[in-house]
């Protein structure tokens, strides 16, 4: 793994006096996939939104390849051209066909020739199994299909890093894997990514490193093996337990107990 592409140093962000990020630092190296997990409201989406300037930060600094990108107001779009982002609510532009959704950024923001991007777009659609949808309108696609198009749209900008903000949270369960498989493909291709997700098995499969965020601070950081199989903190253990269910055949006595975790 190469040099650090992204460096976040001690960032703070509050909304209406409530601290959402309270001193988060992290680093992502070239080709690395970092998965950020944590209970809802822990600030993980806000962290991604701060990185690409959709939220301003109150304190701290963010660097992209050594260049400070936080705190600037002018030419923010030039920074965003280098950072891809896909959101939870598959936001394709409803008035444009799939192909026009894909071409917009590369041709209008980067000024690349249309024919060249179109060829590349078709190849990428092919790879995600949606070549025949190039001329379809977004509303005719399923949620999973829309989200795959959104991934292609972000990738066509040839970003240096890709931010994925709970991209399967709004999908029906049976569509989750078709989207996540595309992400795993991208990871295999060496794409640098920061991924926020609630899909723990996917996180374990795709991550090089896991960050556990709670109440706006990084509580734990480690390899997926460490984090998922031997979490260091009680909070992380507690969090991971919320994804498993006790079998009804296990014998447990039901009785009031003291909250051991806290």
């Amino acid at each position: 793994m190469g040099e650090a592409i992204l460096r976040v140093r001690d960032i703070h962000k509050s909304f209406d006096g409530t601290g959402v990020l309270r001193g988060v630092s992290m680093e992502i190296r070239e080709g690395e996939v970092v998965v950020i997990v944590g209970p809802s409201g822990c600030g993980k989406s806000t962290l991604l939104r701060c990185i690409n300037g959709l939220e301003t930060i109150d304190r701290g600094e963010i660097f992209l390849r050594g260049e400070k990108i936080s705190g600037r107001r002018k030419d923010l779009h030039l920074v965003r051209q280098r950072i891809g982002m896909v959101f939870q609510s598959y936001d394709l532009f409803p008035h444009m066909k799939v192909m026009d959704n894909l071409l917009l950024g590369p041709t209008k923001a980067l000024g690349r020739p249309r024919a060249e991007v179109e060829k590349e777009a078709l190849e990428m659609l092919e790879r995600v199994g949606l070549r025949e949808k190039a001329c379809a309108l977004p509303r005719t696609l399923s949620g999973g299909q829309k989200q795959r198009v959104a991934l292609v749209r972000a990738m066509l900008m040839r970003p240096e890093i890709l931010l994925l903000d709970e991209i399967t949270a709004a999908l029906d369960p049976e569509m989750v894997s078709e989207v996540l498989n595309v992400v795993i493909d991208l990871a295999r291709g060496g794409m640098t990514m920061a991924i926020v997700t609630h899909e723990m098995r996917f996180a374990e499969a795709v991550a090089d490193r896991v960050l556990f965020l709670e109440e706006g601070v990084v509580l734990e950081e480690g390899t997926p093996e460490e984090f998922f199989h031997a979490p260091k903190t009680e909070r992380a253990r507690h969090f991971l337990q919320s994804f498993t269910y006790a079998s009804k055949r296990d014998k447990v006595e039901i009785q009031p107990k003291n909250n051991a975790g806290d």
Partner: protein
Amino acid sequence: MQDLGIGILFKGVNFQRLLGGLWVTLRLALITIGLSCLFGLLFGMLMLSGKRIVKAFCRLWLEIVRFMPQLVLLYLVYFGFARLFGWDLDGETSAVIVFTFWGTAEMGDLIRGALTSIPRHQTESAAALGLNKARIYLHILIPQTLRRLLPQAINLSTRIIKTTALVKMINVTEVLKVGQQIIGQFYRQPDAAFWVYFVIFLLYFLVCWPFSLLARHLEKRWA
């Protein structure tokens, strides 16, 4: 045929006179629609502005326009302003003022609705693609606003065209007034009224129907 009232429409220049009246109707409507779009855009943006007092003022304007019959407003401006302020407004000017007062509020409300109906995510997705502000407006926000707005704006326009018939009450010689003049000349022809009004009905229909078709077509295409 000679005995039928419809024949009088083809006597002399009667039909041309009707068309002349229709032109007055259309001219009035087009000026009103044009001004309403222009001021409506301002009105819509004012309604979206942060200032509470400005919003309340717009709201009040809109309510007045919705509850007040257009005819009362026409009389108020045409007769009332003449007496009160000594303004000697001719009928057509009064009509443009009243209908624009109405159209601005209605169009502004439509524009406000269209602008607010576009989810914030659309702007964010476009921003995340590295488009600058101008391009976000040009490629994402304005096209989507227009798509939501156009069908409704066209419907409002046909309503404005129809409503201009009221201006005959303040001495503007538009198509309806011309029709009444023709009927008056041929008072001995008992079915003249039926045929003249029937033809006027057809003229209105022919003017408004294409608009309505267009609105329906756009609505379906952009749904």
